[in-house]
């Protein structure tokens, strides 16, 4: 029986939607929503097939590697696609109320293009296609940031573009080196051929540097706060939830499959940088007076957590890191949406002047608080599960010192989240002029926040999806646990 090529549809559908939105601006919303729902359906279809048949490789047009383009889907890709679809649907609904018509016809094509690039990136099976998708992603993201207009957003977009181009070139140079040495760009083939050599180290360094720059790992995070804070709220949500994760995803893939595991030094280095990011981002977030900047710095901190799995290297740690990634995506998208609502409502986002927002925008404030629970890592939330897994992996590996950033980061997060919530409980002297916030914007934020919370209660499902195709290798920790329990 001919199988439905969900992979290809995941890439082509949003792309076609973007074209349609661009060509028929009057029907933007219609095409946009149809595409969004369609992508959701395709992800479900692909997920269903992966559950039944395991990891899948698909040769586009029947050409196959090395000349053709291969798409590869395993548990890791699937989870990234699912989270993209969830956040994407939330953002799509949110944006209906957020943008006026004039901006909507610009937003939708770019957003669908971004979605297409993300899906393609998570499905790519070779490092050169990853480069192309990364560039597509970057260009769409930059254009989306610029959508806000105004000097702040434009300069932030410009900085973001330059960083993106620089990072992509570093990455491409690494690709060139790998190709020259091993004659292939296919990840699976490279995984078999790569041996430690100076050229590989150089390639690894260049590619990692480019990807770390894009993932905004401390100290390469300088471009992130202005870009994420000055973009329109739905775009901030997309950037923080998904776009920075895409480059992290590539790094994860390369690290797991291609880079030779000789010596612990690079992993330790990434761990140290991650720990520094957690602390620095947390402290900076605490110092901010503007809500969106606070949330943006929180992203810097939260990205740091993801890198704490590198020094540990066990499959349990990788899963914990991925779990944090997923819950952060949902929670941070919800948080930026809530900030967008507050900005719309009050006309500003000065934290100290959030008078009585708790009473006047209750749904938004609940969304912010619930998302905050996951960001801090309190139970029951996805953030807690991820943190628990990392803590456990660190202690099991005997590297107890990684507990310190995990815990201090949580305390800092609690401090900056409750700083906001505390101001929301103030008594206002005067009732200022406020703008109405559409219901859909409030409830979209709440839905994503609740999804982040729910991730803390249904952890077994995502964890079992992570087993498809064993992207993290065998589960040695699970084996230890089984041995201990029996």
């Amino acid at each position: 029986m001919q199988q439905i090529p969900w992979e290809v549809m995941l890439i082509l559908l949003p792309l076609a939607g973007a074209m349609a939105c661009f060509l028929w601006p009057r029907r933007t919303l219609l095409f946009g929503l149809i595409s969004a729902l369609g992508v959701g359906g395709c992800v479900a279809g692909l997920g269903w097939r992966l559950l039944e048949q395991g990891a899948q490789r698909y040769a586009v047009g029947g050409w196959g590697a090395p000349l053709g383009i291969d798409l590869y889907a395993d548990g890791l890709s699937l989870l990234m696609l699912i989270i993209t679809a969830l956040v994407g649907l939330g953002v799509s609904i949110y944006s209906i109320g957020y943008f006026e018509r004039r901006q909507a016809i610009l937003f939708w094509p770019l957003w669908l293009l971004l979605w297409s690039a993300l899906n393609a990136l998570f499905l790519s099976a070779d490092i050169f296609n990853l480069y192309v998708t990364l560039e597509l992603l970057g260009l769409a993201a930059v254009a989306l940031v610029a959508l806000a207009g105004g000097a702040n957003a434009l300069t932030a977009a410009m900085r973001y573009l330059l960083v993106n181009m620089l990072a992509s070139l570093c990455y491409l140079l690494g690709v060139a080196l790998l190709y020259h040495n091993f004659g292939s760009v296919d990840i699976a083939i490279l995984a078999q051929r790569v041996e430690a050599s100076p050229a590989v180290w150089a390639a690894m360094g260049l590619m990692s540097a480019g990807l770390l720059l894009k993932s905004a790992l401390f100290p390469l995070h300088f471009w992130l706060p202005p870009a994420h804070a000055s973009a329109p709220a739905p775009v901030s949500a997309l950037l923080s939830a998904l776009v920075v994760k895409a480059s992290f995803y590539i790094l994860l893939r390369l690290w797991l499959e291609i880079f030779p595991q000789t010596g612990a030094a690079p992993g330790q280095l990434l761990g140290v940088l991650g720990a520094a990011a957690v602390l620095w981002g947390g402290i900076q977030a605490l110092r901010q007076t503007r809500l969106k900047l606070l949330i943006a710095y929180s992203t810097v901190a939260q990205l740091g957590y993801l890198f704490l799995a590198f020094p540990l290297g066990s499959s349990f740690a990788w899963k914990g890191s991925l779990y944090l990634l997923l819950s952060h995506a949902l929670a941070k998208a919800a948080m930026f949406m809530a900030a967008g609502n507050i900005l719309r409502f009050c006309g500003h986002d000065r934290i100290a002047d959030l008078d009585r927002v708790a009473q006047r925008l209750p749904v938004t404030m609940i969304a912010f608080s619930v998302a905050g629970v996951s960001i801090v890592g309190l139970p029951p939330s996805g953030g807690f599960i991820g943190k628990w897994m990392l803590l456990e992996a660190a202690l099991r590996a005997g590297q107890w010192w990684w507990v310190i950033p995990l815990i201090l980061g949580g305390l800092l997060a609690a401090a900056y989240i409750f700083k906001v919530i505390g101001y929301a409980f103030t008594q206002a002297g005067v009732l200022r002029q406020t703008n109405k916030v559409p219901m859909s914007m409030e409830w979209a934020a709440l839905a994503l926040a609740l999804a982040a919370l729910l991730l803390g209660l249904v952890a077994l499902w995502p964890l079992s999806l992570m087993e498809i195709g064993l992207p993290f290798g065998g589960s040695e920790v699970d084996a230890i646990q089984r041995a201990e329990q029996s």
Partner: protein
Amino acid sequence: MNWDAGLPLLIVATSLFSGLMIFFLSEKHVVARTTLNLGGAVFKLVLVGVMIWGVFHGHHYEARLPLLPGLDLLLRADAESMLFVVLSSGLWLVTTIYAIGYLEGSPHRSRFFGFFSLCVTATVGVALAGNLITFVLFYELLTLSTYPLIVHRETEVARRAGRTYLIYTITGGALLLVGTVWLYSMTGTLEFAHRGFVAGLLDTHRVSLIVVFVLLVAGLGVKAALVPLHGWLPQAMVAPAPVSALLHAVAVVKAGAFGIVRVVDDVYGVEATTKLGVSGPLAALAAVTIIYGSLRALFQDDLKRRLAFSTVSQVSYIVLGIAIIGPIATTGGLVHLVHQGVMKITLFFCAGNLAETLGIHKVSEMNGVGRRMPWTMAAFTIGALGMIGVPPLAGFVTKWYLGVGALDAGQEWVVYILAGSSLLNAGYFLPVLYAVWFKPAPDSWPDERSFGRFETSWALLAPPVVTALLTLAVGLLASAPFSPLQWARFITTLEYMP
């Protein structure tokens, strides 16, 4: 789902459900909100009654929800949890009635009662938690749901108190979390068991176990207000009186104390606790807290602050009883979990009545108030005498068991602590009682409100009278079947007998 698994879930869910519903009610829906509040509380109490009956008849109530591979969320009804569940669900009903009367006509009641219900959900969850991770989950939920109650008045003072509370409790929660993960990485299980589950590691992981014990007790000690982790408690006094009653008697400090009971009895087990040499320092810490809290209480003129420091002192009786390690002292500690709750909630209700009815906030304003509010002050007197340890009230039973238990365990010094503490208790309560009953009343009260037939509204008056009667009853009927004391002895038997 069968009934044995459903009941614990249902008991937790009753208040969760009513709490979530209340959030969606507007301020005007007083009747609907009151119905939900009282209905939830009564229903929960009925279910708890069913559960006691079931446990007594050998039913095994247990609900599991897989959280991570090899790690479940576990709700389980064992003897210890029943003690705490009865306390919290019983006093929740009383406090709800009180709060409805107390907050009549004030703003944001839906928010208040919503979080109030969540708070009780968390407390019952803490009580029914069958393993450490479930305990941690509800313990953190308790932190989150009490914060909005403390800042309820939205004043600058309230927000500062809320901030202090969060700094203490979130840090404590983090320590507890680290201890829990660490323990799990060593043992591979977190399920509470009589005599604990660490015995196999005593020789190989001695230092780690001690560090974990310190982490766990520090994390729990924040809520139990062990010195020097007690700083948040007196500040949290700015909250409305029902919240103070809840924080001090039922929910927060009790969750901490109950957690320490769990750690000593069901995580480490008394044997391992003794072998590791951590019980002595814990007892010493509790003793210091008892004396320190009493000393500070002596010098407070603000009535609620005096009561707050009294709580600091009294809650450590529980910890002391557990840390002495011996069946009789443990019984005393466990039973004080209930006794202190009943007595302290009476005192806070009375303090709230004074503030609401007459505008009295300070001890120095209480002269002669006994004639103006005889019922309230009679309840207050019973609570205060109970705290001092006058027979046959609740506090006497506790102190008796603690003292005898300490002698039994060969730790005479505890008796001196108890005697000193009782003297200090008398020192900060008797002058108040003297002023209330024997000093002449002033011409006018600071801010008097009239409530018609009674000295104050019935919703404010009934709860303290009921809890005062309970204080009498648990002392007088201590040897009746199903009294807190008998239940505590039953638990101790499980813990110490082979």
